[in-house]
């Protein structure tokens, strides 16, 4: 059984727009994922790529239970996201890091890291602090343990956010365009951390536009288009075979400068 099973999921959003001719607000339905199915194993790094608006982020948010799904089901370690009582365990199983860094502003770095484990996993302060120090070392920010979020650069904040997610010992990390708000230098420092983690065997599912990352670290690449899986392939196969044969992939890769 795969760790994450996405089964025939349909997800749509209500969008309000202004109709010029009738001068009224109208609600329209935007379907983002249509009868969508995919499995994720607890192995290596899977990268989700594709044009904007194809439901990559929505997929991650649905897996984590941040969005409810209209139809179908998602099982994380056998737990359904439709079951509200399982939501906490699902979120402990899949840690998530977002595009916008959201370190809790009233806490310093160390407190940001230890809050979750202490309150949710029943860790003692000493245990949590030890673990946090270990992870801060890993992301190279041990000197910043007392810093507040505004004393950190965007890249540093994102590295802390990764460490915070890892504090909960998730089986997989969901990364939602975590480098999109960063400049190239900070992007590379975050990607280095991710490469290290991948080398340690941390399972990641990442939405990204960083093809360098995809080339270096990914094991599997899923190319999404119009709310469906267009290509689901091994990395090498994707960059050789599919790039040549699939017109949509070729034009996308060309468009983003790969």
């Amino acid at each position: 059984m795969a760790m994450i099973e996405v089964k025939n999921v349909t997800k749509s959003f209500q969008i309000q727009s202004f109709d010029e001719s009738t001068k009224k607000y109208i609600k329209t339905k935007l379907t983002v994922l249509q009868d969508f199915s995919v499995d994720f194993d607890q192995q290596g790094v899977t990268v989700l790529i594709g044009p904007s608006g194809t439901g990559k982020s929505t997929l991650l948010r649905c897996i984590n239970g941040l969005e409810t799904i209209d139809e179908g089901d998602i099982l994380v370690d056998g737990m359904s996201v439709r079951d509200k009582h399982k939501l906490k365990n699902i979120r402990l199983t899949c840690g998530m890091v977002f595009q916008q860094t959201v370190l809790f502003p009233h806490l310093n770095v160390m407190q940001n890291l230890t809050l979750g484990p202490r309150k949710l996993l029943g860790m003692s302060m000493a245990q949590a602090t030890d673990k946090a120090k270990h992870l801060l070392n890993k992301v190279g920010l041990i000197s910043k343990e007392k810093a507040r979020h505004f004393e950190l650069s965007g890249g540093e904040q994102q590295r802390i956010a990764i460490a915070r997610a890892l504090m909960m010992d998730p089986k997989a990390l969901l990364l939602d365009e975590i480098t999109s708000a960063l400049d190239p230098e900070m992007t590379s420092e975050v990607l280095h951390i991710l490469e290290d983690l991948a080398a340690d065997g941390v399972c990641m599912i990442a939405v990204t536009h960083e093809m360098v990352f995809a080339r270096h670290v990914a094991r599997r690449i899923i190319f999404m288009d119009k709310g469906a899986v267009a290509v689901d392939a091994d990395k090498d196969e994707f960059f050789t075979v599919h790039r040549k044969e699939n017109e949509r992939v070729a034009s996308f890769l060309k468009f983003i400068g790969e």
Partner: protein
Amino acid sequence: MGYQLNFRVLSQYSDLFLSGIVLTGKISLGAMVISFILGIVLAIMRQSKNKIARRIAGLWVEVLRNTPFLIQLFFFYYGLPQFGIYVDALTVGIVALGINASAPNCEVIRSGLLAIKTGYYEASAALGFSKLQNFLFVVLPISLRLAFKPLTSNFVNLVLTSSVCYSITLMEIMGVAKTVSARSNRPFEIYLILLISYTLFTYAVSFIAKAIDKRIEIRL
């Protein structure tokens, strides 16, 4: 001008003044605690999804903000005994002032709640926090810190408003001043002392608040 300032006459009343200051302190502190807790509860109610809770809190705030404190005070002090509820003046004073100040406190705490970005909800939800845990560990601490500065100004206001409590026989500093002024016939000196006392009092409140604010200040 033939008027001679004379503070010496008042020295015999210094104990009375002191007890007045202590009582003003008691009333203010008690009311601050009540108004703070009520303010949080009301702010949560006003932001809740429950329509009835929202309405009740809305009505509460509007009534209190749009009526004079003197009338609220008399309502509790003279009105309640008609229903057989007899409470001593001090308790009525503290509770009435606390209730009165709960309305503006509710509004500033609510502004703090409204300033929280959805990102924080999502980040804490993604860690596995329940809604209640999210509220207790993330939302409330952040919004109270954001609301702290306006809260201080509400508390200063509260201290000043406490002077109205003299009208229900409380011998706080204003009550003392009325009495002493009648006995000594030295109103100018007495009320000068009062102005200075209140200034020092509220200055002390702001001073403490600033010290706290330095420690808890946050940037979003």
